[in-house]
């Protein structure tokens, strides 16, 4: 993955978050406080600005995006995305491009950070329900020598399904956990927005291969 693709990913993510802002808010209204779309959209607006002035290198760009999200998203998602991306930045090479394995390693660092900070397990009805299996599939695919665009295409579809599967769960972490049994029957907003990140990844890479 090179810097252009990386930035394209974030631009596409910004667009799809913006397009789904109201929907994400409505998901959050059902089991939270109706701000997840607003939070993510506010953060992405700043994040892509960081992307517009790449100061050279994936790490610098990733760190700029991390700081932008950390200082604008707020809420649970802001802390998780922001601090997670800081770990992502630390793990990704400084160079203007990286190998698929290096990218997978950075995603792994991101997911570990989210788990350390948020303490959520698989099935707790959070973004972890998307990121954890996605990370595993990503690493497995890279290990097996699949091309990143192909893995991303699989993940775009799989994460969408995993996000929707959170609907049947009872939330055990985050604000939705306070609803207990009442949290069942609604898709987790953070899981859904996370699946959009993989959708954006697949689109960014499809443009390359296409």
């Amino acid at each position, binding site marked *: 993955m090179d810097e252009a693709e990386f930035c394209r990913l974030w631009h596409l993510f910004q667009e799809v978050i913006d397009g789904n802002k109201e929907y994400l*808010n409505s998901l959050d*209204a*059902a*089991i*939270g*406080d*109706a*701000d997840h779309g*607003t*939070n993510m959209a*506010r953060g992405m607006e700043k994040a892509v600005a960081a992307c517009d002035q790449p100061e050279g290198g994936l790490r610098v760009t990733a760190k700029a995006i991390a700081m932008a999200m*950390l*200082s*604008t*998203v*707020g*809420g*649970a*998602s*802001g*802390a*998780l995305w*922001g*601090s997670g991306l800081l770990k992502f930045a630390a793990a990704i090479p400084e160079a203007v491009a990286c190998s698929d394995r290096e990218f997978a390693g950075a995603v792994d660092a991101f997911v570990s950070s989210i788990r350390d*900070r*948020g303490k959520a397990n698989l099935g707790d009805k959070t973004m972890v329900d998307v990121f954890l299996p996605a990370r595993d599939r990503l690493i497995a695919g890279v290990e097996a020598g699949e091309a990143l665009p192909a893995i991303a295409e699989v993940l775009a579809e799989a994460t969408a399904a995993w996000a929707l599967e959170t609907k049947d769960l009872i939330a*055990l*972490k*985050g*604000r939705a*956990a*306070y*609803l*207990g049994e*009442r949290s069942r029957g609604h898709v987790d907003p953070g899981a859904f927005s996370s699946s959009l990140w993989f959708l954006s990844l697949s689109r960014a890479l499809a443009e390359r291969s296409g």
Partner: protein
Amino acid sequence: MKKLINSIDHVVDEALDGMVLAFPQYLVRVPDTHVLARAVPKAQGKVGIVSGGGSGHEPAHGGYVGYGMLDAAVAGEVFTSPTPDQVLAGIKAADHGGGVLLVVKNYTGDVMNFDIAREMAEAEGIQTGTVTVNDDVAVEDSLYTSGRRGIAGTVFVHKVAGALAELGASLEEVAAGANAVIANVASMGFALEPCTVPAAGKPTFELAGDEMEMGIGIHGEPGTHRMKVEAASELTRHLFVKIAADLELVAGTRVVAMVNGMGATPLLELAVMANELGRLAAAEGLALEQVFLGEFMTSLEMAGASLTLLRVDERRLELIGSSCDTPALRQGVKFG
């Protein structure tokens, strides 16, 4: 949605400036931040107290900045926890060399953002401590979940921690006092009407003309269950019974209470609820030492109320009742 605002994006920014305009004797705004700090900082060496959270809970949290309570309040967007850089700015404003205590309400977002800020502050050599308020007994407590929420009981934590800090207590002592409040405070609330987050543009839930939500938090979230509206006596009893059970109150226990409006409930009605509280406390033989009645921790224009009880001993009662001078809470007026 009808709101007395100019734009969704600037409401917090403009409101913070409005608070400074109205309370210049208490508040300054830390430049380029959403932090309100004391206009007259406390003496060097004393512990600083920082609180904060999403906006929309006014007078919390900026309303509690001043003598005897907070040193700085950090405001997030409406119902969204503030970001770590903002919290760090609050910590720096509150740091007078004696360390800084962070009062955090137990929401994942608040906890994590304050944690990140605390890591940053420690990296810069500022000694910090955190206490996490989780007074909401509507929510089941469990080690496997996020635990209980922090709601109006937070104001009592501000009061006691602030009073101790003013007296020159160490960071450990202030944190211990705050944690003692947390161990002895319980709250619960309900909504008769929902509120509308400006950015969302519509109410966070919808209620029929005879319905209400019991066990709500302070972010417009739905509560634990929906029910038919009942009389003030029944609603107050409902909260009281849950809280009293949680605190294991018995005849003779000394308590301080807070009857807190969620935003749109008239003081006339809150006073009716206070009257019911008085009856219940008398029937149970509780010693109701002080009652705070008004709006202390709101949810925008939500209609409804919460009840908080704090078990006190002589010392804690003194700290609750001691002088303080902030925009929203003032005690100890000197006459003549």
